[in-house]
């Protein structure tokens, strides 16, 4: 088990203040305050429908919050468009993998470079030297990331044709290709077998160690959560039910156990709705 990195060590990378997202009459995220510090892995856990994915979608700009603010490295990014948020340095993956199925793995990873390149219509048509250099850089980064996740050999295969576990890694490689400061992973281990999960954990730890990146994670696999998180935040019903703590404390927290096991008559179906939107 790696040594824990401490809060004090890093500046705040991501901060949400009173973040609230409402769907129809349903409060999916209820004035959530969250802080993610530089260089750490923070896991967001909670039962289905707790509003975790909604938090991700608000942070990455897919949803606009009703109330509250999102700050990224001190800058207010509330209500910015997804594509703008990527260029600020937040890259994400999706709960149910969203690759570009009919394009090659290499092209998939090159997508991550889009926000870091600038060639326009005319330089692309006339193949200006600048554009060519940039293309080489895009391809170079893609190669580097593909090699990192051991998919260089599949570079010319269509994304839909590679194994499920590889697709998960490809999506992470794509997110990493934009050189993000914050990597937001939505259940990266779901559908992976134990070996693949172990590889994934090792990979994430390598990344954290070697690169200037912070990771925010939604995860259901408790082994993984306990294994790699520096901090854990538990959500239920759109609220934070336990202050962020180290995994062992959270594991013992009575409220967390209740949230997961249910207190008999809590209308847990109501929670399911927001994530569907």
């Amino acid at each position: 088990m790696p040594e824990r990195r401490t809060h004090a060590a890093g500046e705040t990378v991501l901060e949400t203040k009173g973040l609230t997202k409402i769907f129809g009459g349903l409060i999916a995220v209820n004035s959530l305050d969250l802080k993610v510090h530089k260089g750490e892995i923070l896991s967001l856990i909670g039962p289905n429908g707790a509003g975790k994915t909604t938090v991700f979608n608000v942070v990455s700009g897919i949803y606009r919050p009703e109330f509250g603010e999102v700050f990224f490295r001190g800058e207010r990014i509330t209500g910015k468009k997804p594509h703008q948020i990527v260029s600020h340095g937040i890259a994400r993956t999706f709960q149910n993998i969203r690759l570009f199925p009919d394009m090659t793995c290499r092209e998939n990873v090159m997508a991550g470079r889009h926000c870091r390149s600038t060639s326009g219509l005319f330089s692309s048509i006339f193949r200006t030297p600048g554009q060519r250099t940039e293309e080489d850089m895009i391809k170079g980064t893609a190669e580097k990331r593909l090699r990192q996740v051991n998919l260089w050999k599949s570079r010319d295969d269509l994304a839909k044709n590679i194994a499920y576990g590889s697709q998960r890694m490809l999506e992470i490689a794509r997110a990493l290709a934009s050189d993000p400061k914050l990597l937001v992973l939505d259940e990266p281990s779901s559908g992976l077998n134990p070996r693949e999960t172990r590889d994934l954990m090792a990979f994430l730890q390598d990344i954290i160690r070697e690169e200037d990146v912070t990771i925010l994670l939604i995860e259901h696999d408790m082994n993984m959560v306990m294994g790699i998180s520096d901090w854990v935040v538990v959500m239920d019903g759109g609220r934070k039910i336990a202050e962020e703590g180290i995994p062992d404390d959270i594991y013992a927290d009575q409220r967390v156990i209740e949230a997961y096991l249910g207190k008999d008559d809590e209308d847990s179906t109501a929670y399911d709705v927001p994530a569907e939107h």
Partner: protein
Amino acid sequence: MERTPLNGIGRLASSRQLHIALATAVFLIYPFLVSDYFIDIAFYFGIYTLLGLSLNIVLGEVGLFDLGHAGFYAIGAYTTAILNTKFGIPILVLLPLSALAAALFAYVVCSPIIHLQGDYLLIVTLGMGEIVRLALINNPFDLTGGPNGVFGIDFPSLGPWLVIDSSLEYYFLIWLIVGLTILGLTRLQDSRIGRAWNYIREDETAANANGIDSRSYKLLAFVLGAALAGVAGNVYASKLMCVSPESFSFWESCLMFCIVLIGGMGSIPGVIIGAAFISLFPEIFRPFAMYRMLIFGSAMMLMMMFRPGGVWPRKRGAVKYESLLEGTGRSDA
């Protein structure tokens, strides 16, 4: 069997070059072997290829259902017709102007509707195409000549040095434009813009989450597609020397849609095949008189039955890439 990637590239490249050289040779020699009638058929084949290429950007590359593309074609043709007959502006000057007018029109009209998804975009573009056609018929500001259209359009010329007025010269004009367009579009396909279009087609949400401003790229596709359709309109107008609204009906939009889908979405050779099918088939089957459209309809159904992805779909991953980082050409990481 050991497969060396470099060999693969070499083989592919040389056969590709051979094909292009052969095709170019055939296209250069062909018009000198046949009568003007067959040159004209090849000319209209060129027009449909250009139209197919222009719709392919929107429909094939980005996956936007545009069933009103004839509207842009019409804007290009009428811009040429009106400015040439009213102000005597030379056709070749109007070539970029028509493209610009169609592009501007696309920008203004598509901006508010670009967020619509799938079939809703389809019906809105269809409505837009119909609005253009109906407006042309109704002769707004006495500009479009109503159902009669505009007549007396010039042929393209550059002073006394370059005069394009025979079938042969029109043939070369349109295929030169098609050739340049193909060159440009092939380059775009292999650039961050072309890829961005494809990302949007594959999964718009994921594309956005990867930093692609899908709204701008979709608009760009419409604007560029419209500009090319405008160019086609310019050449068509000067070739026919007159334009009338019946040339820009909903049916023309349907034909362009079919060109892209018959050939294969996003595939440039596919567009050429689709355009060949659409423009040559009815001519070849002319002797069948009133049965020819029956055959045409059946052929469309059969093609989709046996080649639902198109006759010549774009093959991704066919070209094997070598490493940029290692420089040795070894492919195994």
